[in-house]
């Protein structure tokens, strides 16, 4: 009986093709919008998570000074970090995989007719490990280079393409600020980080070279710490904090005068915000689904009035009110479910192209697809009920007399 009634509903829908399509459109748009927004939102979340991952896994970054909440914090002129701090961390903190101290500056780099301004990082080979850079060509720094601070440099892919275009940079000598420096290595491109900064726009030199010949002091700007896999970054960060407070003589009651950034924590925060935003957008789109449902109810009410005679005939020849009700209810459900299926297809296609246009990964969200399908059927039940009940309660005599 249900199956026969569904066939009857399908025939009724085909009989009024244009009207049926227009009726479905509300649900199509609602479901499509939910699917598209949630898919794109999840893609964005995945992208952000991936980008933060690129900065380095389990990465903790220590810098001097604070980004304080209050106005007072900015005023603290904190003492800079020293290489001893990095050594102490390496020696004393449990759960640390690698530590790299970095002296940072920026300078004009020149090769032939090409030049650009880029960031100069003074560190050692641990820097590449901690920050997740791998060597494309050439070699890492030799022990002698690191110890003596000779003018060797390893360049990022952006610097390479700016200065050398397609040419092989290894062995060439570039000018960094005022010093001549031989290129010994080229890094594999990492792409953009989450905040849009280019991670390949850098020149790395031995720390002593940078300190002695570019910054002119022995300060270091950051200490990058890679926590061991499986060791919570939060726990390691706490240990770091204790050590640094002690080394920098921050007694009880004094705030930290340094900052430890935990990439995992940042990733979590950003992902959380992105997920919340996705949910919000999805909820807004869901409102249009409800509007689509009201559209279905409207047309079904018109249809019941239009087909009053038909309902009268059905009742007179032996249909129960409940059978007429089922027929109209199924018509509404078939309409809304078909709208839902079309909406799911359009939403997926739309989000696929949107993801490509926004260079986001395309994320198929099966849970949302299933939810949208169930919800669209539910829209049919809820908004089809009233018209169906109206049809079922018609008096056959009155209905047959209806013009």
């Amino acid at each position, binding site marked *: *009986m249900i199956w*026969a009634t569904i066939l*009857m509903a399908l025939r009724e829908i085909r*009989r009024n093709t244009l009207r049926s399509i227009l009726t479905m459109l509300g649900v199509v748009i609602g479901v499509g919008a939910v699917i598209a927004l949630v898919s794109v939102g999840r893609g964005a979340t995945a992208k952000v998570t991936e980008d933060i991952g690129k900065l380095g896994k389990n990465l903790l970054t220590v810098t001097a000074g604070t980004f304080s909440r209050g106005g007072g914090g900015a005023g603290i002129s904190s003492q800079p970090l020293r290489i001893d701090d990095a050594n102490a961390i390496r020696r004393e903190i449990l759960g640390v995989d690698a530590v790299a101290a970095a002296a940072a500056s920026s300078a004009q780099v020149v090769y032939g007719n090409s030049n650009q301004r880029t960031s100069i990082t003074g560190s050692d080979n641990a820097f590449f490990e901690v920050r997740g850079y791998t060597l494309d060509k050439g070699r890492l720094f030799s022990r002698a280079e690191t110890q003596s601070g000779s003018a060797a440099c390893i360049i990022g892919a952006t610097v390479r393409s700016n200065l050398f275009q397609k040419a092989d940079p290894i062995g060439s000598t570039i000018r960094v600020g005022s010093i001549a420096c031989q290129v010994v290595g080229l890094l594999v491109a990492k792409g953009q980080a989450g905040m849009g900064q280019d991670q390949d726009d850098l020149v790395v030199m031995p720390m002593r070279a940078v300190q002695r010949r570019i910054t002119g002091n022995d300060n270091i700007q950051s200490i990058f710490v890679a926590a061991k896999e499986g060791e919570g970054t939060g726990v390691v960060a706490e240990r770091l904090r204790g050590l640094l407070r002690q080394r920098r003589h921050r007694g009880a009651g004094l705030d930290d005068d340094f900052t430890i950034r935990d990439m995992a924590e940042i990733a979590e925060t950003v992902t959380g915000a992105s997920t919340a935003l996705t949910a919000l957008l999805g909820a807004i789109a869901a409102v249009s689904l409800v509007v689509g449902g009201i559209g279905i109810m409207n047309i079904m009410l018109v249809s019941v009035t239009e087909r009053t*005679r*038909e309902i*009268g*005939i*059905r*009742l*007179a*020849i*032996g*249909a*129960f*009110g409940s*059978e007429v009700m089922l027929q109209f209810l199924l018509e509404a459900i078939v309409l809304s479910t078909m709208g839902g299926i079309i909406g799911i297809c359009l939403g997926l296609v739309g989000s696929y192209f949107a993801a490509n246009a926004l260079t986001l990964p395309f994320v198929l969200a099966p849970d949302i697809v299933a939810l949208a399908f169930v919800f669209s059927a539910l829209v049919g039940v809820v908004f089809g009920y009233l018209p169906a009940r109206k049809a079922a309660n018609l008096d*056959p*005599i009155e209905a*047959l007399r209806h013009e």
Partner: protein
Amino acid sequence: MTTDSSTSPARALIELSQVHKHYGEGESEVRALDGIDLRIERGEFVAIMGSSGSGKSTCMNILGCLDRPTAGDYHLADVLVTELPGDGLTMLRRHYIGFVFQGFNLLARTSALENVELPLVYRRIPRAEREERALKALAMVGLEDRVDHAPSQLSGGQQQRVAIARALVTEPDILMADEPTGNLDSARTEEVMELLQQLNRERGITIVMVTHEPDVAAFARRNIVFRDGRILSDTVVGGGA
């Protein structure tokens, strides 16, 4: 063929006793039926006549189990209709009664075959049997070559014959025809009435027909005339035409 309800021991197919149907209340009360006693036996062909407002349509609605009397008893095939719940009326319509209306009342944009199948759908007859029976019913009314035509592609007489096939497909005990020729010209009228006569004669189907045209009523074998909610006369006529 006229029978006296008080003397017959067995119940007739249709028995009305002191049936009233009142609309409105108090001053504005209208007595559409005012104490009707009526027996119709199996196999009869009855024409109910009367001017508009005489109560003949109201009587028809009650006989067809589309409406309930305000007072009185109605027995249809030994079932006391007046005491059945709403779904019970539907069940009686489904199993005992076939309807033919003045306006044909076929489903538009639906083939003759599907129109005729419709009552069987509600009886949950499987598809293949449904089609077979519908084709048989259409053959009975002489439309076997029009099964795929929609009502708009058929003449009025043909549409009414489809409607008769739809009424017959369930093999009902009673055919209720409400002004079956009201929308037809005289040639089509004759065609449809001869069909009804033939069905009554050859298949023994009980037919109750409402009409206000005496020459249509002449096709029946018994004429009942209503006036002001009462039966004015009840006569056996030739019915041979």
